[in-house]
């Protein structure tokens, strides 16, 4: 592992910082008069009442705190809700030159039950990010929050807010339609993102609100935050597989995806299975014409945070060895701190856990290449070369569902596949 863990000034891009509002008025002030009236003003009634909370509650909180201590400028404000204070903390080492803001619990909002309110709130949150955060420090960059339960409106919002040069991607966190993200219902979002040359960012944790349609870990509702912290990658595997198998990357060949908040340790296992199964199952999805792992290497990048940490003194070596079983992860992984989350990763810690030869690509080059930074010309849309969803006739001979064949001892055996 690396010995020299000091990164030079400005040599790091932080791909995930979570920003929040000190008061929801900051966001609702960007809404129409009608919405402002309906949502109300906090503290105009006794006991702090007077407004509807725009933020859904989450049943999952970490005992001891969800955030690093002392990340607020005032004891009553949420962590990372003061742009100047946050900039000081994120950039104080001098190593970070750019940080991408990805919302904190604000990412629950696309799944609130009132779809019209979700659309209005997403617009307001994007305008608030631009006015309140991007204007306060030119090292901050934003992601377009989209109300993905209404994909057409989401696409419209990408085309509107994505015009801002400092919006470098599109955020999909809460799963508004309760379908894997590769489902055709979501495709208008990808069409708009490809058109605007903005990468799609999948962020874990959007499904932790009490209004959630999908579970934050696969297989059923977890009971505790501890379960989520360990298994947040499980629904992400569903999304990654879905994007590849449903042909999103053939339909929108220039689409780029960034996965944040789930670490990297899950990658080898998923693709060992997916690649080998594809050999035998590809006729079900003939538009998937490359190994699934090839699509992953070409169209996905992953945040390092929260980096997988195996126990024991040789823990870091064992994690890197596991990643090497997939290979090329140094070209896929982008440093992210996750600030101000309780499990924020520091630059020096991550640098010490990965080989020195990975540093330049992980800390800067991969993110530099992936996001649409200001001044970078928007790349043209690449047209598909295959009809996703079309099933051609392949002339399978004999009835594949019911056939007989001779066994070695001369008996005739009828072969009936399961489910028939």
């Amino acid at each position, binding site marked *: 592992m690396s010995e020299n863990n000091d990164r030079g000034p400005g040599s790091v891009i932080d791909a995930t910082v979570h920003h929040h509002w000190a008061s929801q008025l900051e966001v609702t002030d960007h809404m129409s008069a009608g919405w402002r009236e309906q949502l109300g003003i906090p503290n105009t009634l006794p006991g702090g009442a007077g407004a509807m909370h725009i933020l859904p509650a989450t049943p999952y909180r970490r005992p001891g705190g969800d955030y690093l201590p002392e990340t607020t400028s005032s004891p009553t404000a949420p962590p990372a809700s003061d742009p100047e204070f946050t900039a000081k903390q994120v950039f104080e080492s001098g190593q970070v030159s750019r940080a991408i803001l990805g919302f904190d619990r604000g990412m629950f909002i696309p799944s609130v039950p009132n779809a019209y309110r979700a659309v209005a709130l997403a617009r307001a949150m994007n305008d608030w990010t631009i006015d309140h955060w991007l204007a306060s420090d030119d090292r901050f960059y934003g992601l377009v929050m989209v109300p993905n339960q209404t994909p057409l409106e989401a696409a419209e919002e990408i085309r509107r807010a994505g015009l801002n040069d400092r919006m470098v991607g599109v955020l999909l966190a809460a799963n508004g339609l309760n379908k894997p993200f590769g489902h055709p219902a979501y495709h208008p979002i990808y069409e708009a993102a490809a058109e605007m040359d903005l990468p799609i960012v999948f962020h874990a944790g959007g499904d932790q609100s009490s209004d959630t349609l999908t579970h934050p870990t696969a297989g059923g509702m977890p009971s505790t935050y501890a379960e989520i912290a360990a298994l947040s990658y499980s629904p992400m595997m569903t999304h990654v597989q879905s994007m590849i198998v449903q042909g999103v990357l*053939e339909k929108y060949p220039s689409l780029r995806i960034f996965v944040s908040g789930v670490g990297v340790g899950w990658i080898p296992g998923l693709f060992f299975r997916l690649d080998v199964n*594809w*050999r*035998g*199952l*590809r*006729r079900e999805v*003939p*538009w998937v*014409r490359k*190994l699934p792992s090839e699509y992953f290497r070409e169209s996905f990048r992953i945040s390092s945070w929260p980096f997988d940490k195996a126990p024991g003194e040789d823990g870091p070596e064992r994690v890197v060895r596991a990643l090497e079983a997939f290979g090329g992860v140094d070209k896929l992984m982008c440093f992210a701190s996750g600030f101000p989350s309780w499990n924020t990763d520091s630059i020096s810690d991550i640098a010490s856990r990965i080989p020195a030869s990975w540093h330049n690509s992980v800390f800067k080059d991969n993110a530099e290449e992936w996001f649409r930074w200001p001044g970078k010309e928007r790349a043209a849309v690449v*047209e*598909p*070369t*295959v*009809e996703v969803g*079309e*099933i*051609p*006739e*392949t*002339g*399978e*001979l*004999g009835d*594949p569902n019911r*056939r007989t*064949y*001779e066994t070695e001892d001369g008996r005739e055996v009828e*072969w009936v596949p399961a489910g028939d």
Partner: protein
Amino acid sequence: MKNGIDIGAWEDFPDKEIVRVEVGGTVLGVCRWGELIYAFRNACPHQGAPLCSGFMQQNVSAEMVAGDVSMLTREEVPVVLCPWHRWEFNLEDGSAAWPGFKMRTYRATRESGRVLLHFGRK
């Protein structure tokens, strides 16, 4: 009939059907595809499944042809699909849809109405 093992008359091999043939203890799959005839070892290189119980299909690919965005099947490229995991192999040269495994193929020819099998290098 030079250098070939006679495995039957041309008529013994119905079009687009896999016929199981035993030659000196080695079991082969032999199949006709129109005027062509192919032979391959009755064992999938993946896990040894009996390929004779597999399926013949046309190759399917997703290459763009002359600017046309569609899926393509090729009548002239027959493949055999393994009955266990549906891995598929080109009958002409045994190549798999994805490199790494190869089906063993043999040369079969038609001479004077008989089908001859040639072991050894193709």
